[in-house]
């Protein structure tokens, strides 16, 4: 049973969770650092407890203090949000041992999925496709050639002891293999004193496609379609949308079914995300499973009409899923842009400071999730995301048009933001045509800025 929930997070996600609780009639406890005194989440919650100084290690990552706050206030559940302690198996275990409901999967599941090799093995056993590769070190070029044919080109040759790009070469065909292998091996020998290599299928210009999963305690697992998060800068997502322009109904069914199988194999409970890499030819590979609610969850909420946070809390309270797979319908198109306090012209340098003026858009099909307000002081300790702007339209072109319209209304004074940069991405012809992969920002000059590797 959940009567009072403590939100072990800050910023927009804490506000988002508090709002869900208010709607559900659950009492809320916010925790905040000294740097976050007066922040929106601490004001909006029914109670708020200061848990220490600004640096995360002393506050939002300090599990003992967070647990103390929960005990003092009589909370019976903790929602970790994303980041901070959300995927910390030890914190989940700590909650379990204190009979505190953790809004997320069991600690053992977090630990198992956090171990990359073990997770990969679980997925292989469940028949979930992973990036094919060798399972033993290779030293002879002939053996490598034979293995490469089985794996499928293009092939990336990597040093077993590798790192930092050394001893790494790509071969796009059999003809290129020998040279790539020997060059990489020579580099590996020189750099690491070891010539053991392994081969892996090189996934070229993939899209980042992830599937939202909901799983309850009774073994019901459903997926809520995909999110395309291919617009990334150095693995930081910038724009997410659902559905993906690259995923057909058939592919969605196939990938969705695979995602559900993956979640079941991991004995998953709660809201979670299966990340895939999708190749141009429609092949896809399991990357990892995120055991938390994600930043980009609103796009899924909008196209499926499911409140993921409420569903997550209901599952934590021991209740079954309120929807079945066949009830899930993807309607229209949703896009989310992350608005960050950073300067794209200066290598995306974070820009903490005080927000002097603020105007945020609104209206039909427009949603803003944020913790900022006029006069808000951005603390230097945390990530630079200020707000998420999410729009919903009946199809992708109309959603893009709506996002451009809404983005054009955003005024944030006093700090540098990436609003103009995001506006430029949305205006790009390739983006508008849906021709996007994870290298998009490296291959396109956006507003005079090109992202280096």
């Amino acid at each position: 049973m959940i009567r009072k929930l403590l939100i072990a997070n800050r910023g927009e996600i804490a506000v988002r969770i508090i709002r869900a609780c208010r709607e559900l009639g659950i009492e809320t406890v916010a925790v905040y650092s000294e740097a976050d005194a007066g922040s929106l989440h601490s004001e909006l919650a029914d109670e708020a407890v200061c848990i220490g100084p600004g640096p995360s290690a002393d506050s939002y990552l300090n599990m003992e203090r967070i647990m103390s706050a929960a005990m003092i206030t009589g909370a019976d559940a903790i929602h970790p949000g994303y980041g901070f302690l959300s995927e910390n198996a030890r914190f989940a275990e700590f909650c379990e041992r204190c009979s505190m409901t953790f809004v997320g999967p069991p600690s053992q599941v977090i630990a198992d999925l956090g171990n990359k090799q073990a997770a990969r093995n679980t997925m292989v056993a469940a028949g979930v496709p992973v990036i094919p590769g060798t399972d033993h070190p290779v030293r002879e070029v002939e053996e490598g050639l034979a293995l490469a044919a089985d794996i499928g080109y293009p092939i990336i040759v990597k040093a077993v002891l590798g790192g930092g790009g050394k001893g790494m070469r790509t071969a796009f065909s059999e003809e290129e293999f020998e040279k790539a292998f020997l060059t990489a091996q020579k580099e590996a020998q020189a750099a690491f004193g070891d010539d053991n290599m392994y081969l892996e299928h090189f996934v070229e210009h993939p899209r980042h496609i992830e599937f939202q999963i909901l799983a309850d305690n009774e073994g019901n697992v459903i997926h809520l379609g995909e999110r395309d998060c291919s617009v990334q800068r150095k693995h930081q997502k910038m724009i997410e949308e659902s559905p993906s322009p690259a995923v057909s109904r058939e592919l969605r069914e196939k990938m969705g079914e695979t995602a559900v199988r993956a979640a079941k194999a991991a004995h998953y409970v709660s809201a979670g995300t299966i990340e895939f890499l999708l190749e141009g030819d429609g092949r896809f590979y399991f990357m990892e499973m995120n055991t938390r609610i994600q930043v980009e969850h609103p796009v899924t909420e909008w196209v499926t009409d499911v409140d993921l946070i409420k569903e997550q809390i209901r599952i934590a309270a021991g209740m079954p899923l309120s929807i079945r797979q066949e009830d899930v319908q993807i309607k229209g198109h949703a896009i989310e842009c992350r608005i960050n306090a950073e300067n794209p012209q200066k290598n995306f340098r974070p820009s903490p400071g005080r927000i002097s003026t603020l105007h945020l858009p609104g209206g039909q099909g427009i949603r803003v999730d944020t913790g900022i307000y006029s006069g808000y002081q951005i603390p230097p300790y945390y990530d630079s995301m200020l707000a998420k702007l999410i729009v919903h339209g009946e199809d992708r072109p109309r959603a893009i048009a709506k996002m451009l319209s809404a983005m054009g209304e955003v005024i944030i004074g006093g700090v540098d933001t990436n609003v103009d940069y995001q506006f430029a991405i949305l205006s790009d012809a390739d983006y508008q045509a849906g021709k996007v992969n994870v290298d998009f920002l490296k291959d396109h000059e956006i507003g005079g800025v090109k992202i280096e590797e």
Partner: protein
Amino acid sequence: MKSNHLFKKTAKYIPLGERAESVPEVPEGLLRRCNACKAAVFVEEVVAGSYICPRCGNYFRVPAYARLAQIADEGSFEEWDAELAGSNPLRYKGYGEKVRELRERTGLREAVVTGRAQIGGIPAVLGVMDGRFLMASMGECVGEKITRAIERATEERLPVILFTCSGGARMQEGIISLMQMAKTAAAVRKHSEAGLLYITVLTDPTTGGVTASFAMLGDIILAEPGALIGFAGPRVIEQTIRQKLPKDFQRAEFLLEHGFLDAIVERERMRECLAKLLKLHCSGGEIFDRNLSMAQKNTGQDSRREGMIYGDSSVSVHAWEHVQLARDKRRPVGHDYIERLFPDFVEFHGDRYLRDDPAVIGGIATFGGVPVTVIAQEKGEGTKGCIARNFGMVSPDGYRKSMRLVRQAEKFKRPVIFLVDTPGAFCGMEAEEQGQGEAIARNISDLFGVRVPVLSIVIGEGGSGGALAFAVADQVWMLEHAVYSILSPEGFASILWKDGSRAREAAALMKLTARDLYRMGIVERVVQEEGTFPKREGFSRETMDGVLAQLAKGIEEFMIQYGNLDEEELLAQRYQRFRKF
């Protein structure tokens, strides 16, 4: 926004889901508060680790058996006198009950656990005190267990390692407790006279009668970082002298600086460190004999003849150039030789009286499998390093540290290798107050009685008596461009001609170059430097391989030549070596 709670609270509370069976609470014993940073920490994490606070790195006190598990090879510990118990000599009321209650609570019989164990495969007697038992105060039983363990170690010829932790004497046992100090100290003495190794590891807190007896008597005294170590406890001192004590007073770091510790060792490295020390003392004499007799097969080289070759090949340059080269900032200094010639070197600090002199680096290492004691005068590197090392100008406590390490070498039958590089003994008020002259005299005199081979190598400047205190040896060698003299050329000129600027002229007269000194029989060997001429800047850390190779070969020959010499013969030769001048 200072909304001051303008938002309306959640409108209506509706519990979600079924009533839970248990109310959230932190189970007993899951968390404890760190006494240093006040953070709550997971007990399991602390116990599974090294009893160190994961938040602030503070050391918690380690229960005896947990310490044994950290230090001894797995399954190797065999406890001795486990059932031994003390009496109540003063018939102190309530003492018996207190002890019974503690036994129940801690699972210990008394405040110390002793026995035999292996560390890194080497057998040793190991004793660990446990502060949970009446602050590990020393009563009859603690003293008896320690004494018995040391006595048995003497019989079985085993090294002893004691982890100390104690509030001091056990008040409840009165004068009997005081006698334990004498009893344990006597046992340590007998163990030491048998030529055996005794290491103490002082942990927080080590005070009172334990400090003033067996704790401070180790051949090697180690401590954990931050441990409180002292005779009178800080509270007693403050009450007696009515003065607030500084924060680091009586901490391990304070003791190290004041010369009473050989080293501070972090808990995670303690086992490795002890294993290494045991290995370096592994029946030192025997290894010494065996290795040398093995090496002896290769003898037959005439080192004197080679010395001549080195001497003759020296290019003729003005003596003043030698002085400048010997003082060159790029020239390798003591630690450069130690690192390269003795890679397993372990440094020991302190004179055990007053201070640890940073101008002297001393410790033990192996050379070709043979344990040796190495003591270097250290000039330091870079401006900060040179200042920290006082430019190699040794203070009385440096000479006393050196002599302490020489005596230790003698006890464990290790040859001694001195590296000389000093402009002269430190000339300052403190040095005189602490008896600079006495310290040098004592070194010179005592070195004539040391019953192990002593080799001295002048690597840079050999400045006067400050150098001689490190150069009373069976052989003295010099690097090609090192200098060794009665005092600096500047000083010489100033005394004789009242004009310090005539140093160049003085240098030419003084016979301070290696070649001159070789001809005069002051040194036995001259080690040729590479690349010094014609390029003046040649000899440096980068180009010292050739010198190192010559030194390595020479040291091996020296050890073969002197290693198996009869002790009386060795001392007689050393006497004659200096008698001839």
